[in-house]
């Protein structure tokens, strides 16, 4: 695989350190006037999500990580893997639970997700920013009941639980922001 020198470092560059894939979050050139030059980076481990600081001598090289992001349609889950398909090529990929993580609760068939591939294997799954899901279970809300702050829990068709306004009922479809897990609106 290719390598990058520190003078090519920039935000968003995908590199391999000790066999783990990282994304460069911040990069700074540091050099005392008459001293050694360094490249100090903040990097996010794309597998664990942890951010760490690393320091390299200016001019050193690191291995490039084979990371690609592709848009894929969610097909189905079989209990062990979540299956996705690239729309144009019909290529299918199977993502493990570790790669899907929190996104599992938002996945609805045919929704287009952003899949990060490492060495052509799913590393992480990002659902669309907004999803429209049907409420499968929720208590009927009493109009004028403000004791709960005007919201009640609702279970959605994917199993996700979100807080919705009291006037929203079972069977209705709601729009949810997957980044915050919050109810946005009803969908007609």
């Amino acid at each position, binding site marked *: 695989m290719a390598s990058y020198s520190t003078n090519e470092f920039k935000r968003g560059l995908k590199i391999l350190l000790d066999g783990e894939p990282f994304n460069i979050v911040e990069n700074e*050139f*540091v050099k*005392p006037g*008459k*001293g050694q030059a*360094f490249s100090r980076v903040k990097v996010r481990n794309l597998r664990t999500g942890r951010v760490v600081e*690393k*320091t390299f001598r200016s001019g050193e090289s690191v291995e490039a990580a084979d990371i690609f992001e592709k848009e894929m349609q969610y097909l189905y889950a079989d209990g062990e893997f979540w299956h996705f398909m690239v729309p144009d090529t019909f290529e299918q990929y199977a993502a493990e639970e570790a790669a899907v993580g929190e996104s599992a609760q938002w996945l609805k068939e045919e929704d287009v997700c952003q899949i990060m591939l490492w060495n052509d294997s799913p590393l992480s799954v990002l659902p669309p920013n907004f999803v429209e899901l049907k409420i499968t279970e929720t208590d009927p809300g009493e109009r004028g009941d403000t004791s709960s702050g005007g919201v009640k829990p609702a279970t959605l068709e994917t199993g996700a639980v979100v807080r919705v306004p009291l006037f929203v009922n079972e069977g209705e479809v709601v729009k949810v922001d997957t980044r915050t897990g919050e109810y946005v609106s009803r969908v007609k």
Partner: protein
Amino acid sequence: MSDDWRPSGDGDCLMARASLLRGIRDFFEREDVLEVETPVLSSAGNSDPRIESLSIDINGQRFWLQTSPEFAMKRLLAAEHRAIYQICKVFRGGERGRNHNLEFTMLEWYRPGWTHFELMDEVARLIALALGRAALPTGTLTYREAMRTHGQIDPWLCGENDLRTAVGELGADASLDRDEALDLIFSVRVVPNLDPDSVIFIHAFPESQAALARLDEELGYPSARRFEAFFGGMELANGYHELTDPDEQEQRIKTELEQRRRAGLEQPTADHRLIKALQHGLPACAGVAMGIDRLLMLRSGARHIDEVLCFPVERA
């Protein structure tokens, strides 16, 4: 069509630069320091292993672009024995970042008969002037004090393990040598923790980082009569009580070239004309080099050097 024909800095920065240069010239005229011009090209390169000299080929002969006007100005001093200053472009390969451009503007001046302590006072006055202030608070501490206070490392006493642990905490691996480790700790632990609203002078550098400064043991341990000035979190100037001994200077150059060879770096031609000038006799003097672009950044609140440059290297 990209906009890279345009300057990266704005109109205000143009005026700020013109005003700063005027102010600096007025300052030195009042102080009776003469402005000089020495060549940007030299038949010799810089032997410092941490600085990359750029070179060009002119009719089969190699010339180097100056990384500082130091050697040429010292040759001039050996002939003229008077206080001189220069504002000029210098070039350092591989240096690019928020505070670095490959080509930048340096103000460098020499005071025959002064120690570097007297020069520090003048540096503080000039920085205040550049920032439009009547005076600025100053602070002075030794490299040793600075490293012990902010880096928890005593460079004169610490062992390899202490350094390895310290740089490990900064995400560096164990391959850093002693000076590299000190440089990293200094840059990350010391500099950002200096009072940004005072001109802070750090002096008495380790022997291994003496560069062109004299060495002595006045503090009870060997150190270099060298200082750096900081303000606003930035390194602004580097100065010395200048080394005048030709034999020691020649030995330092040889040592540096050997360090370059061992590191697999090119060894530029050594400046034998500088040695001849020192053999003739360089007056005892103190000298300092200051980054003009960084002064401008502080003056205008710029977060990146490109904001004060017309055309940084990528759009030169």
